C-alpha cells in the first residue's frame, strides 16, 4: 500500500518552532542585561540550573510516570563530583577546563543513576516511589557520616577561578558563569526535548500508560524505565555540576529530601503533562525560595496555600492553564474573556491584599515586634496592634472576596459557553 501524502511528518520548516527556540535563546542572552544586580544574576543562574533539574525530573514523572522522591540524589552527587573535579583542576592534578566541569557532574549523575536505578526501576508505582524515598534518606544520612567525600556538614568548597583565562574568561564574575549556565541550559533543554521524539521517549510514555501491554509488543518495561532513569540522571548531574560552579560550595543539603521534594512540587506546579511546564516550575522555584522568603516571613504559609489551591483548581499546572487559553485564542475567542480576566485579577489582588495584610500583621507581631507595632505592607503602613488596621484589612479582604465571586460566576459561565462552542466547531470540522 502506498501513502501518497506523508502527512505524519512534521512540516520541514516549522516556523513556529524556530521562533520559540529563537525566543528562548534570546531570553537567555538578554536577561542579565535587564536584571543586572548581583542577586538577580545569581537567581538567573539558579533558574537555568533548576530548569535542567526539573526537566530531567519530568522525564521520570511526566513522561515515565515514575514518582521519584529522590531526584536530588543525582543532582547532588553530580555536584559533589563536579566540585571534587574543580578542586582537582585547581590543585593541578587534573587539567580539565572549568567549562567542562558540568559534564563531570553529568557523567557522575549518569553513573549513580545506572547504579542505584538498577534496583529502583525494577519496580514501579508506589513501590518505586518508596524505594527512591529510602535511597534518598540513606544517601543523605551517609553524606553526614562519610566526611571524606562529602565534607561533613561543612561541605566541600572550591574556587572556580582556575587556570589561564580563556579570551579573558576567568569565570570570576558571576555573569560569565551565568552565560556558561545559559549555554548548558539551552543545549540540555534542546536535547531533552529531542528525547521526547525518539523511540525510547515514546516507549517511555507507553510504559507510563500501560506497562503490561508494552511487554507484549516486544519491549521490556523495566529496561525502558532504567534507560530513561539513566538519561534523566545524566541531565540531573549536569544541573548539579553547574550548581557546584555557581556556588563554589557543595553541602549535604543538595542530596536532601527537601531538595527532592522541591523538584517534585515545582515540576508539578509548572505542569508535568507539557514539556515546557517544568521550565515554568523551575523559574517559580527559584523565585519562591530566594525572593518570596525575603519579601515575607510568611512565605512557607503562602507556598503551602499556593500548592493547595493550584492542585485543587489547576491540577495540570500552570502549563495546562496556558494551553487552555491558547486553545481559546486559537479559536479567536480570547477577546471575550479578557475583561473577565482583568476583573478576576483585580478582585483577586484586592482580596489577597486584605488577606496578606492580616497574615503579615500576625507574623509581625510574632517575629518583629522589636521594631514596634508598625509595619509596611504594599506601601501602606499598618499597625499590628491597632483595631483599625485589622478591621480595614478585613474589610478589604471581604470586599475582594465578594467581588471576586461575582466576577468568577460570570467568568465560568463565559468559559463553559466558549468551551461548548469550540467543541461544536471541532465536531463540525471532524464531520467534514
Amino acid at each position: 500500500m502506498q501513502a501518497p501524502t506523508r502527512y505524519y511528518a512534521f512540516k520541514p520548516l516549522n516556523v513556529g518552532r524556530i521562533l520559540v527556540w529563537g525566543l528562548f535563546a534570546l531570553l537567555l542572552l538578554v536577561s542579565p542585561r535587564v536584571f543586572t544586580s548581583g542577586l538577580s544574576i545569581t537567581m538567573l543562574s539558579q533558574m537555568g540550573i533548576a530548569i535542567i533539574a526539573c526537566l530531567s525530573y519530568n522525564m521520570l514523572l511526566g513522561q515515565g510516570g515514575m514518582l521519584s522522591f529522590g531526584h536530588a540524589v543525582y543532582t547532588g552527587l553530580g555536584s559533589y563530583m563536579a566540585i571534587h573535579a574543580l578542586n582537582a583542576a585547581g590543585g593541578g592534578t587534573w587539567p580539565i577546563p572549568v567549562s567542562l566541569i558540568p559534564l563531570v557532574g553529568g557523567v557522575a549523575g549518569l553513573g549513580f543513576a545506572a547504579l542505584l536505578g538498577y534496583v529502583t526501576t525494577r519496580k514501579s508505582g508506589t513501590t518505586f516511589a518508596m524505594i527512591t524515598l529510602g535511597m534518598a534518606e540513606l544517601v543523605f544520612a551517609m553524606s553526614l557520616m562519610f566526611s571524606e567525600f562529602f565534607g561533613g556538614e561543612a561541605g566541600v568548597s572550591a574556587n572556580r577561578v582556575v587556570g589561564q583565562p580563556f579570551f579573558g574568561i576567568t569565570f570570576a564574575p558571576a555573569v560569565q558563569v551565568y552565560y556558561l549556565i545559559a549555554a548548558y541550559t539551552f543545549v540540555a533543554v534542546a536535547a531533552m526535548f529531542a528525547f521526547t521524539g525518539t523511540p525510547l521517549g515514546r516507549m517511555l510514555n507507553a510504559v507510563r500508560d500501560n506497562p503490561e501491554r508494552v511487554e507484549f509488543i516486544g519491549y521490556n518495561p523495566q529496561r525502558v524505565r532504567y534507560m530513561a532513569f539513566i538519561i534523566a540522571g545524566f541531565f540531573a548531574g549536569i544541573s548539579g555540576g553547574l550548581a557546584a560552579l555557581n556556588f563554589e560550595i557543595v553541602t549535604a543539603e543538595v542530596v536532601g529530601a527537601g531538595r527532592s521534594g522541591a523538584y517534585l512540587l515545582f515540576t508539578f506546579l509548572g505542569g508535568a503533562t507539557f514539556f515546557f511546564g517544568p521550565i515554568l516550575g523551575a523559574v517559580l522555584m527559584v523565585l519562591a525560595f530566594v525572593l518570596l522568603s525575603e519579601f515575607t516571613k510568611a512565605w512557607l504559609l503562602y507556598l503551602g496555600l499556593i500548592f493547595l489551591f493550584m492542585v485543587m483548581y489547576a491540577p495540570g499546572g500552570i502549563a495546562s492553564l496556558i494551553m487552555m487559553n491558547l486553545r481559546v485564542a486559537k479559536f479567536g475567542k480570547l477577546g471575550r474573556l479578557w475583561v473577565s480576566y482583568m476583573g478576576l485579577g483585580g478582585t483577586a489582588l484586592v482580596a489577597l491584599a486584605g488577606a496578606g495584610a492580616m497574615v503579615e500583621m500576625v507574623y509581625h507581631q510574632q517575629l518583629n515586634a522589636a521594631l514596634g507595632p508598625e509595619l509596611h505592607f504594599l506601601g501602606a503602613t499598618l499597625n499590628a496592634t491597632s483595631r483599625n488596621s485589622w478591621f480595614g484589612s478585613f474589610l478589604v479582604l471581604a470586599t475582594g472576596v465578594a467581588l471576586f465571586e461575582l466576577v468568577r460566576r460570570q467568568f465560568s459561565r463565559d468559559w463553559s459557553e466558549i468551551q461548548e462552542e469550540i467543541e461544536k466547531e471541532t465536531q463540525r470540522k471532524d464531520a467534514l
Partner: protein
Amino acid sequence: QKGETVKIAWIDPLSGLMAPVGTNQLKSFQFFAEKFSQSNPAGVKFEVVGIDNKLSPTESLNALKSALDQGVRYITQGNGSAVAGALIDAVAKHNERNPGKEVMFLNHSAVDPDFTNSKCNYWHFRFDADTSMKMEAMTTFMADKKDIQKVYLLNQNYSHGQQVSRFAKEILARKRPDIQIVGDDLHPLAQVRDFSPYIAKIKASGADTVITGNWGSDLSLLVKAANEGGYTGNFYTYYTGVSGTPTALGTNSAGRVYQIAYAHYNMGGSMEKWMGEFKTKFNDDFYTGSVIHIYTALGEAMAKAKSTDPVKVAAALEGMKFKSYNGDVEMRKTDHQLQQPLYMTVWQKADKKYPYSPENTGMTLAPVKTFESYVSSTPTSCQMKRPG
C-alpha cells in the same frame, strides 16, 4: 562617620529546625541595635536586615548576594558551622574579586575552632568562644571534681558534636588521665525521638558523668529520657540555656546539669536590666550575649577608625581591647578570636541570689565558677593573610 547608618545583614534561620533560636537571636539583634544606636562612641545608627537562610549554606549565599545588593557591608551569622564556613569562603572570594566593596563577617555563635585556626580569614571575627576554649574551661572545672570517674560522651554526629567529643578526649587525657571514657557515641542530628536506648547504654556503662554538645530537642529529649530512665549522673553541656531546653529540663534535673558559656542568666549590672527589658518586651529570654560584644566592638572600632568602611574597621578591630558585660575582652589579632571569660553554671532553683528564670521555669543557671580569659584561651595555628 557620625550619624551614618550601619546596616548589618543578619543571615540566619527563621524557618526549619533552628527557627526558634534564629527568631530569638534576630530579636536580640534588633533590640540591641536600638539600644546601641542611642549611644555608641562612633555615633552611628545600627540597622539590622534580617534574612532567612533556612539553615542552608547555598541559601545563605543567596542571602549574601541580596544583602550586597542592598549596600550592606557587615554581615552576621552564627547558627550552624556549615553555614559559617560557606559564608567565610564566600566573603573572602567576594572581597578578593570586588576590591572597594569589602564585607566583614561578624560571627556571633558558630563555634568550629577551624575558623580561627586552619581556615582563619582576615574578614571573619568571632565573638563566641570556640569549642576548644569551652572544653578547656569545662575540663578545668571537672579536673577538681574528684568524684568524676567514668565519663560518657554523647554527641550529635556533625562537626560540632564530633569536635566536642574529640576535644573532651584530648583534654581530659591531659588533665585527668585517671578518668575513664566509658563511651563515645554520635547520633544523627535532630533525628532521634527516643533517647532511652542511649540512657540504657549509659547506665550499663556505669558512667557518672555525661559530656554532650547537644542542643535543642536533642538535649532536652536526652535529659528527659535520663530522668525517666532513672539515670542519676551529671551532664556537662554547651547549650542548656538555649530556646526550648529550659522548659524541657523542668525542675527534675536540679543540680545535675552544667553549662559552659561566655555568659549566663545572672550576670547582674546592665545585663540584668537588659534581660529584664527583653523579657517584658518579647516574653522571651536573651541568651546570645555575643550580640552585645558585636555592637560594642563595632562602635569602638568605628570610632577608632573614624570610618564605617569595613577595611578600616577591620584593621581597627584587630587586636582591640574593650570592656563588655563580662569584663575586659580582647579581639586577638592573630586569629580574630575574642578572648573572654567563661562561666560554669548549674541548673537549679531560682532564688534571691540568682533570680532570673528562663522560660518561666522557676529554675535558673547559677554560676559556680568563672574562668578568666587566660584559662580558657587556646593556642592558634592561624597564619592570617592580611590584604595589601
